[in-house]
C-alpha cells in the first residue's frame, strides 16, 4: 500500500516520466480510495495545463518584443561574426 506521501510523489512523476506498470496500478488503486490524493492529482493536472498554455501563449504574444537597443547590439554582433566566419577556411 502506498502512503499519501508516496502517492503524491508518483502523481508528480507521472507528469515527467512514464510510470512502471506496478507504479501505475498501485497509484490508480490509491487514487480510487483516497479523496485527498485524487484531488491533488486533479489539481496538479490543471496547474500543468495552465502552465503549458501560458508557455505557448507567451511565445505568441506579439506585444512583447525584443528591445530596440538589444536588436541593434545583436545586429552588430552578427555582422562581426559573419565577417569572422568569412575569414575562416
Amino acid at each position: 500500500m502506498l502512503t499519501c506521501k508516496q502517492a503524491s510523489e508518483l502523481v508528480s512523476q507521472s507528469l515527467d516520466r512514464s510510470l512502471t506498470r506496478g507504479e501505475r496500478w498501485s497509484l490508480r488503486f490509491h487514487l480510487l480510495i483516497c479523496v485527498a490524493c485524487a484531488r491533488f492529482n486533479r489539481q496538479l493536472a490543471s496547474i500543468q495545463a495552465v502552465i503549458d498554455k501560458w508557455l505557448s501563449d507567451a511565445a505568441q504574444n506579439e506585444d512583447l518584443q525584443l528591445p530596440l537597443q538589444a536588436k541593434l547590439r545583436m545586429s552588430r554582433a552578427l555582422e562581426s561574426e559573419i565577417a569572422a566566419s568569412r575569414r575562416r577556411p
Partner: protein
Amino acid sequence: MSNQTPHDWLNEHGDYLYRFALVRLRDTHLAEDAVQETLLAAIQSRSYEGKSAPRTWLTGILKHKIIDLIRKQSREKPSEDLSQTVADEGAVNEFFDESGHWADKPQAWAAPDDELEQKQFLVILQGCMDRLPKKLSRLFLMREILEDDNQAICKELDISPTNAWVMLYRARMGLRKCLELHWLET
C-alpha cells in the same frame, strides 16, 4: 527559405525567440543573451539545410542556450546550488505526518473555467512561481525542454533525473499550496 541571411533570422524570428526565452528565464538580460548566442551559434553551425522551418531550427538551438545559461548561473551562484535545493527536504516533509498521511489535506478548489478566471488564475500562479526559489521555478518552466531529452539535459545541468523529479515535485507542492491559499480567497 534557406537563402535567408542571419539578419533575416533576427528580424523575422528575434521577437519570437526572445519571448520564448523570457518566459522561461524570467530575466530580460538573460533572455537577450540567449537570443544573441542562438543567432551566433546558428551562423557558426551552418548546418541549416532547410529540412525544418528556420524558426523550429532556431528554437532548437535556443533551448540548449537556455540550459547553458541556467547552468552558468548555477556555477556563479553556488549559494543557489541545485543540490542544496534538493537537500532542503524540510519544505516537503511539512506537508505530511510521520506515517505519510497528509498533515494538511488539499482543499477543493474550482478549476478556472471561463477566460477571465483563467487570467486571474494565471496571475496568481505567476505570483506563486515568484515565491519559489528561482532555480526551482526555472526547472519547472523548462519541463517541456526536459521532456525532449531528459537524460541529456539532466547531464548538462549536472543533476540526476531523480533529482529533477524531486525538485519538480517540490515546486508543484509549493505551487499547489500557494494557489490553494490565494486562489480560494478570490
